[in-house]
């Protein structure tokens, strides 16, 4: 148990540190600095496997062989490259370890873990209004929300225009 939990912690720590492998979502120009007008040091095709070194604002520094430079954060995918199985335990493994640990702490569930909120449990669910009423005690009013936002580093309200609506979505649209 202890060993499994440590593995989960290590895996999470690795993710948090940002030392991840990823791939390019599209054909990309790799720039020397994290700016739109910075010098292009290489052009790499979509699907190229890259190491994600660090983020700076809208940019992420990538390494591919001898090539090191910056591409847009939204232009990379952390997901494993197409066709490759997720490494070792993967997030799925972490989740299973997490479940096991939860079961131990709750003292009520059996070893199979906490019941998931899946289509089956939803189909069989009956309304629990008591639980809903109890949650109302933890509602936050505007003052409470503003107080949280003012804690350093403060969250500052911004005027941000809406994003445009794309004309056509991917082929995965409505059924």
């Amino acid at each position, binding site marked *: 148990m202890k060993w499994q939990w440590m593995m989960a912690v290590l895996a999470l720590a690795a993710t948090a540190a940002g030392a991840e492998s990823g791939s390019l979502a599209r054909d990309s120009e790799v720039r020397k600095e994290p700016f739109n007008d910075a010098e292009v040091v290489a052009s790499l095709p979509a699907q190229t496997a890259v190491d994600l070194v660090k983020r700076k604002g809208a940019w992420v520094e990538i390494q591919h062989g001898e090539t090191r430079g910056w591409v847009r954060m939204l232009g990379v995918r952390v997901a494993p490259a197409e066709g490759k199985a997720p490494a070792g335990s993967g997030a799925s493994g972490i989740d299973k370890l997490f479940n096991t640990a939860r079961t131990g702490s709750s003292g009520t569930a059996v070893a199979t873990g*906490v019941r998931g909120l899946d289509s089956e449990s939803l189909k069989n669910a009956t309304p629990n209004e008591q639980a809903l009423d109890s949650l109302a005690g933890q509602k936050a009013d505007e003052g409470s929300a503003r107080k949280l936002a003012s804690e350093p580093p403060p969250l500052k309200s911004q005027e*941000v225009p809406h994003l445009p609506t794309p004309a056509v979505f991917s082929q995965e649209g409505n059924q």
Partner: protein
Amino acid sequence: MKSLRLMLAGGLLAGWLPSAAAFNLDLNRLVDTVKDISTATKEFSPEEEKALGRQTAALLLGASPPVKDKAMQLYVNRVGRWLALHSGVDHVDWQFGVLDTASVNAFATPGGYVFVTSGLLARMQNEAELAGVLAHEIAHVVQQHHLKAIRKGAGISAGANILAELGSRNTRNDAAVQHLTGGIKEVLLRGLDKDDEYEADRLGIVIATRAGYDPLGLVSVLQMLSSVRADDDALALMFSTHPSAGARLDALDEVVGVRLDDYMTQPQQRARFVKKTASLRAKRE
């Protein structure tokens, strides 16, 4: 891997179609029984929206109870309320909550109930990610996506009369409650229109950015989701009711461009997020 996920989602969706049709019939019959089609075609009033949302929220809590950590629940409510202040609507009585389940998902209902599962919360790294997910759900409420789905499922602009019925006879055995609860279940199981999910992603990112968060919180969660195995049971319902995380990232990549660059260094609030959600991680041996 991706195609497998698509095939899986398609299969599940097809499997639900017969029950969706059954829901059509039920709701139409119900409208017949109240014999007032003229008022049934009007829009939902805020009260009716709230009543419907309350039923939906109670149903979700019937499937998974709230996490018994009041400090965490309050924290999520404060983050959610702060986001809602930037949503452009001020008439909604927001209630946020964390559902105690390993499943990875988040839900919104009409009337301003928003839930995130502890399974998803435990996989998040900071408050900006939480904000990204909550803002996506807030966007569903603001745009009334669920009401749209219910109307579409019923084949008419149904609801008004049924909900009035619901408000006057608040008993679980009432036929209207039974039928409506069934209809709500169908929407939860079937998911919303895919275009509405993409719209909630776009609007959610704007809401989170307006609230002062790193705009990429939702993107970070989608990156995490896209790296999870497609056959992971904890994500089955979420994957079957949403476009793939990869497709959502592609869509955001397309519209965000350089538009949010000025806000990319806004805070992620990792420290207090880790502290407030510690009970999801701190386990006794």
